[in-house]
């Protein structure tokens, strides 16, 4: 039950961060972009509790339910957990950089420029966050499917 609750917090927090990020990219004024990217921070506690909870309660369940040391799907889930956490962190740094630029522009006329547009639409920066989401979905698939 705690493991599932942590998974809900992780996915729900990630969805909230993704929605704020998407709305920030589509916002017209830098002040709006900066505000929406600041709201991403509000979803971070949900993500952090979810990341820690899924690992702690997941390892506990691994021991409690005797799935065995060689359960491939659990090892794969742990790999995806590390990948999701690392990529999520990198995506977060990219969003922080975008927020800083947006705040600078907001305080000097509140008009967007090419620099902000390029950062917000940077495929590499955005790919980090989307791939972190994909890795999280992969963990959910493994948890339900339990292959091997």
């Amino acid at each position, binding site marked *: 039950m705690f493991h599932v609750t942590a998974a809900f917090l992780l996915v729900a927090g990630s969805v909230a961060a993704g929605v704020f990020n998407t709305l920030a990219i589509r916002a017209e004024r830098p002040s709006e972009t900066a505000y929406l990217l600041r709201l991403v921070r509000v979803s971070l506690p949900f993500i952090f509790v979810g990341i820690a909870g899924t690992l702690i309660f997941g390892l506990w369940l691994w021991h409690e339910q005797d799935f065995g040391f060689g359960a491939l799907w659990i090892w794969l889930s742990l790999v995806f957990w590390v990948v999701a956490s690392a990529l999520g962190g990198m995506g977060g740094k990219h969003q922080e950089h975008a927020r800083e630029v947006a705040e600078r522009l907001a305080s000097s006329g509140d008009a967007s420029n090419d620099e902000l547009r390029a950062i917000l639409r940077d495929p590499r920066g955005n790919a980090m966050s989307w791939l972190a989401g994909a890795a999280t979905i992969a963990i959910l698939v493994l948890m*339900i499917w339990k292959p091997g």
Partner: protein
Amino acid sequence: MLAVGRPFFPLFLHVFGAMVLTGAVLVALIVSYVAWRRSDLTLLGRAAFWALVVVGVPAYVAMRVGAQWIYSQEGFSGDNDPTWLGIGFAAADIGLLVLLVTIGVAYWWRRSGKPLAGHIVAGLSTVYLLLLAVAWLAMAGKWG
């Protein structure tokens, strides 16, 4: 560790839909509480409305279709169904009503910018998030 020996795709659809729906309601909750202090920001009403419509509604459909699919595959008949199943269906049906009313009020908030509409969205999304939490706790813990 969600379930052993249960149909994969319907269960994935149900759980993933419920998780994404929780995320959409969380967005509405966050922006409506932020609006308590910053009622001048029109983008908050817009964010609540679009999150519920574009993310919340498809997620609700996935969650509900997945639920009905598992229900029919696992041979439940309605007689002596376990308590957790009843809680899940009740949360889904009451939740649909709460979701639709929240979307309606979020639309009013987006159009009018009235703080009262934002306050109502805050209340409704709090209720819905609690309802979702009860449902996932009941279903994960197999209450009854």
